Every structure is written in C-alpha cells, then in structure tokens.
C-alpha cells in the first residue's frame, strides 16, 4: 500500500530538502479519518509525518490546516513543525503537507483517558491557544458580531454541496444557530477538534495538538463545549470539566452557552461527515468513509435535533 506513494514522495522530499536522502521507512499511522497520516523516516535520520487528504473529506483543506498549524507553531503553541505543503494534488493524487514527527504518546482510537495532571496541562495549553495574539500570522477578516455566523454558513455550505437533496433538520439547525448566536467576548484560534486522541503527550504534559483540519478563528467556547460533550465526554463528567476550565483557565461556561455550542458542534459534525458519502462513491472507497457518511452523520443530526427540541424556546 505504501509503494504507490513512496517514489513520488521521496522525489518531492528531495526537492524540498535539497539533498538525496531516501525514505527508509514508510507506513500508515492508524489515526485520523479525514487524512491519511504516513510515518516517513529518511536515511538522514529525519522523521516526518506526511498528512494526505482523502478526497475532500470533511470539507477541509490542507492549505488552511497548514496555515493554522504553522501559526500555532510559530506562536509557541504545542504543534508539530509543519515543513512543506503540496497544494495541487499533482504529486500523490491528493493534496498533502509534511510536518516533523513528534515523539510522545498518542492515545488509541477509543481511549479517552487523561491523567489529572495531563488534563490540567491540556486545558492550560488550549486556553493559551485561544488567547494568543494571532494577528501577525493569520488574517481574520471577521469581527465578533459575524464570526459565529460565518462558521454556521461555512458548514451549511459544506452540507449543501455534499447533499443530493436538502436535509430539513440541518436547515433548521442552521437557522436555530443563527437565531440564538451570542456575540463572543473575543475571537481566538479555535482548534475545532480538541481532546483525547488528537494530541501527543508525555503522560503529564501536552507535547503537540494534532489534527488541525477544523482550526479556524472563532469563539473559543466552541472548543470547550466540544471537550465536554464530544471528544472528552468519556474522559470525565461535565461538571468536572467545567470546574477544570474555571480553575485552570478562569473560563466559565453557563448552561445556555454549553447548550448552544453543543448544537453547533453536532451540526458541524453532521455537515462534515456527510462529505464522506461523496468520497466513498468517488475517490475513497474505504469502509470508514461509508460508516462516517451514514451512521455517524445521522447520529450527529439526531443529537442536534434533540438538543434543539429541548432548548428551542428561550
């Protein structure tokens, strides 16, 4: 499986590195659905991860992901150093970028555990990401009064481009989110998919946040709600997460905010996951594409619809 990409990747890396080092190890790392992550070891001893798109999955782009990861790295936030990007798809048939390989522990696909010290450090570093001055690295173009609406429209566009016919419950969710959106206190770099499985650590400290494809500028509450109700939901109970945010980052999130951003994150997940159907029926016939595009997509819509039903009148 690695062979089809070995030669073109090696040639491309030699051009970027301006040397003749060869690839001595190349194998797929078993994490990530939106991207194929390949471990690459060079004869020089350098080690990389090549992060290859999978046919437009999730409606996210390597260019944006590269820009946010690079900004985070340059600003001192925990992120692997992104080296080079191939934005055309001409080399491997899919767009990709290459970053430094980072030593450390990455929890398994279904492991959501975090030690207390690690959870503290995780929240601290996530809050730093949210508060860092990004203005020199990233062009916002957004203000606090439109940044959330832009994100809603972004994901609604992703769904409409991926869907054959309209999905009324997603239309309703977009309208509900617009209607009840609150202006954030500030705009920050939002990771978009933070939590166990999407960072590398040493047991007690974060070494690097990974999987930056959902990163954007927005209301940081999105990330905290995502931790509580989604990726970190099995790590600890909601009240413990909320207390941790307050203790470590002085961030308080009330029930209304948590409810709103839970709807948003389910909406985002439903829209993003729908793109996997198109990938499965065209360029990427991997079974995970079928599973995500159907069952996981529907699960998110169901969560979202239930939340809107219980919180629609306020």
């Amino acid at each position, binding site marked *: 499986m690695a062979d089809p990409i070995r030669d073109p990747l090696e040639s491309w890396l030699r051009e970027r590195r301006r040397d003749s080092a060869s690839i001595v190890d190349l194998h797929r790392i078993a994490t990530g659905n939106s991207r194929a992550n390949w471990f690459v070891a060079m004869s020089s001893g350098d080690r990389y991860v090549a992060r290859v798109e999978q046919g437009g999955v999730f409606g996210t782009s390597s260019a944006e992901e590269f820009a946010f990861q690079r900004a985070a790295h340059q600003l001192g936030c925990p992120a692997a150093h992104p080296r080079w990007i191939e934005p055309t798809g001409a080399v491997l048939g899919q767009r990709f970028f290459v970053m430094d390989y980072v030593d450390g522990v990455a929890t398994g696909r*279904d492991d959501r555990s975090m030690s207390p010290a690690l959870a503290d450090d995780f929240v601290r570093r996530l809050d730093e990401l949210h508060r860092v001055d990004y203005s020199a690295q990233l062009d916002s173009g957004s203000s606090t009064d439109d940044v959330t609406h832009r994100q809603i429209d972004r994901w609604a566009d992703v769904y409409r481009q991926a869907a054959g016919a309209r999905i*009324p419950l997603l239309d*309703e969710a977009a309208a509900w989110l617009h209607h*009840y959106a609150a202006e954030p206190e500030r705009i920050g770099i939002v990771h978009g998919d933070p939590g166990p499985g999407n960072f590398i650590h040493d047991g007690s400290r974060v070494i690097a946040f990974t999987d930056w494809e959902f990163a954007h500028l927005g209301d940081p509450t999105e990330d905290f709600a995502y931790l509580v109700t989604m990726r970190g939901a099995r790590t600890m109970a909601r009240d413990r997460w909320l207390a941790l945010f307050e203790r470590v980052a002085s961030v308080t999130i009330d029930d209304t905010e948590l409810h709103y951003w839970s709807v948003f994150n389910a909406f985002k997940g439903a829209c993003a996951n729908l793109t996997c159907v198109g990938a499965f029926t065209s360029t990427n016939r991997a079974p*995970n594409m079928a599973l*995500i595009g159907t069952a996981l997509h529907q699960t998110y819509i169901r969560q979202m619809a239930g939340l809107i039903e219980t919180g629609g009148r306020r």
Partner: protein
Amino acid sequence: MADPTDGLSNGWLSDADILRCVEETVLGVLLPALAPEEAWARAVAVQLAGLARYAAGRGPDQTAPRTREIADALTALSGNEIVAAAWDGSRSRLAVMAAAGDALVAATGRFDTAATEVRDRLRPVLVRHLDDELRETASLVDAFRGKLDG
C-alpha cells in the same frame, strides 16, 4: 402468482449470503492474521466487516415512501401560512425536502400557532425517519469504534 422455481434456485447466491461470507472471512480469517501493530489494517478490517453485516441485513431503500409521507404531512398543513409559503405542491424529492427545510427555518424562533404546528406535525415525521434509519445503521457506529474486533 405461483413461484415456478418452487423456492429452489440452483447455483444462485444471494447478495446477503455473499456479504455474510465477507464478514465471516474478514473477522475469522483475515483479522486474526493481522499483527497487533498493524493497527490501521485491523481497524479497516473491522469496519469492512461491519459494513458487510449492515449491507446483508438492511431493508430496502425507503427514500420514496418517506418522501411521500413528508409530502402528505405538508399537504395536511396546506392551510398553514408557513407551509403555504414554502411549498408549491410539487411532490418531487428535491421539492419536498426543500419545502420541509424552508418550513422549519421559517418556524425557527417563532412561537405562534403556525410555527408550533410545523414543529408539532411536520418535524416529528422527519425525526421518526431519522430514528428508523439509525436503527439500521447503529451497528456501523460499533464497527467504526472497532467493537466487532473481539
């Protein structure tokens, strides 16, 4: 009409039987042969087995009857001002789903009789269709999380 085959179809294998073969072969033969460190290949094998199990057991495509049921719900609400503005009576899939979406959007943030009626009589049909679909696809979530990999 009488079945001229008497229920006997020599040599014909059903899609469901073939898919069960795929599932059993992947789980019983191929997966045990994959080394633990081949984590990606093992995950894909479990997902493929789950997909085959789903395909073997699922019912027929319900898109057409569900579209008709949504159109019927819209018809029953034809006197509702929101539905009247959203739907021209076309019963094509594209028109029906667009009308249902537009009606729910128009009802959002409103709590008058028309909006409440849309939420009480149209929305539950859409949610029930989703629940019916989820009953069939739920096993795929398990496969995605590797739960078939005993």
